[in-house]
């Protein structure tokens, strides 16, 4: 159930991205996500609801590629990394410390978007303002140009 809301929010985030950065409505192939194990998001559920949520939208036909990120803790007693688990009460096996520092596992991140721009659409009337620092690469030809744009590394 709550993946529907997550999906809706992801859609809004994608909308924000597009309005700021895509020069026209792009054809999005794949949205690459990182989803940490220590979040309330079930990757499989998210993929299922994505298809439904994006139907009839500009993201129709796009795919979510979800990279799970394991929960890793750092034991503050010895500095060692460990995999906190519910079974072990999230304690560090080395020194039996509670889960103090989380190194990874809280990610809910849009890593990159694979999309194509059709040259004929780059001058669409409601296209967002052009990038003030345009990339000097040549404008795309009539054929679609795929690109993978990292949002954050």
């Amino acid at each position, binding site marked *: 159930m709550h993946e529907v809301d997550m999906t809706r929010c992801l859609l809004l985030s994608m909308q924000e991205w597009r309005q700021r950065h895509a020069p026209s409505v792009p054809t999005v192939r794949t949205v690459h996500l990182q989803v940490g194990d220590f979040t309330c998001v079930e990757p499989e559920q998210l993929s299922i609801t994505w298809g439904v949520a994006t139907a009839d939208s500009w993201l129709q036909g796009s795919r979510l590629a979800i990279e799970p990120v394991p929960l890793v803790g750092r034991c503050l007693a010895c500095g060692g990394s460990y995999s906190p688990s519910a079974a072990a009460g999230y304690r560090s096996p080395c020194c039996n410390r509670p889960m103090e520092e989380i190194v990874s596992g809280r990610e*809910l991140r849009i890593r990159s978007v694979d999309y194509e721009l059709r040259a004929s659409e780059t001058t669409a009337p409601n296209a967002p303002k052009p990038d003030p*620092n345009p990339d000097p690469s040549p404008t795309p030809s009539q054929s679609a140009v795929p690109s993978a744009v990292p*949002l954050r590394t």
Partner: protein
Amino acid sequence: MHMPLEDSLGLNLLAANQHRAEHNRAHFDAWDLLCLNVMSSPGAGKTSLLERTLSQLADDFAMAVLEGDMTTQLDAERLEAVGVPVVPITTGRACHLDAAMVSGGLRLLQQRLDPADLDLLWVENVGNLVCPAEFEVGEHRKVALLSVTEGDDKPLKYPVMFREADCVLITKVDLLPYLPVDVERIAAHIHQVNPHCSVIQVSASRGDGLDAWHDWLRQQRTAQQSRSLVVA
């Protein structure tokens, strides 16, 4: 064509909600009020606790409630009876409040009062131990409730909520004599996933722990005010 993107944008899956939450928080800061997001599973005692806290702190703080967990109109009436403005938030079928819903509630609240006159703004979230933890509404502090009737394994079963909380209230401790549950074990489990959070045992019906809880609140408010003095 390769479009370089700003690093600061679109990094979070929930970025759209995050931006709205930050917007809400900027308003709260401008109004100099402390916003608390109160979360728990259904029936853990959020409304009952608020009833007690609103009436006991009425002379100390000017307060209002954004009520996102209305089972019946009665909940709002119970809180209004204490003399505190309560604005119901329409959640549809959502299982948590999000920042946009809270901003809608704020607009309604502003029709009734000037938020700059408030010290504390309470947000009672939808009863759910899972996703409210991921959806910020602009709060300064997260308060999670766990009743002793829910069992001592809940902090390990819903660790994200208890990890994110700044304060966890173990509620209904008046029932402990009748339950095969070890309250120290509940507290230990909370501290295993969140070693630095405050854990306070309370009973809204008998009054246990309310002083400690209200002290915690006063500390948070004081900390916020001394911080804004430093910034100013």
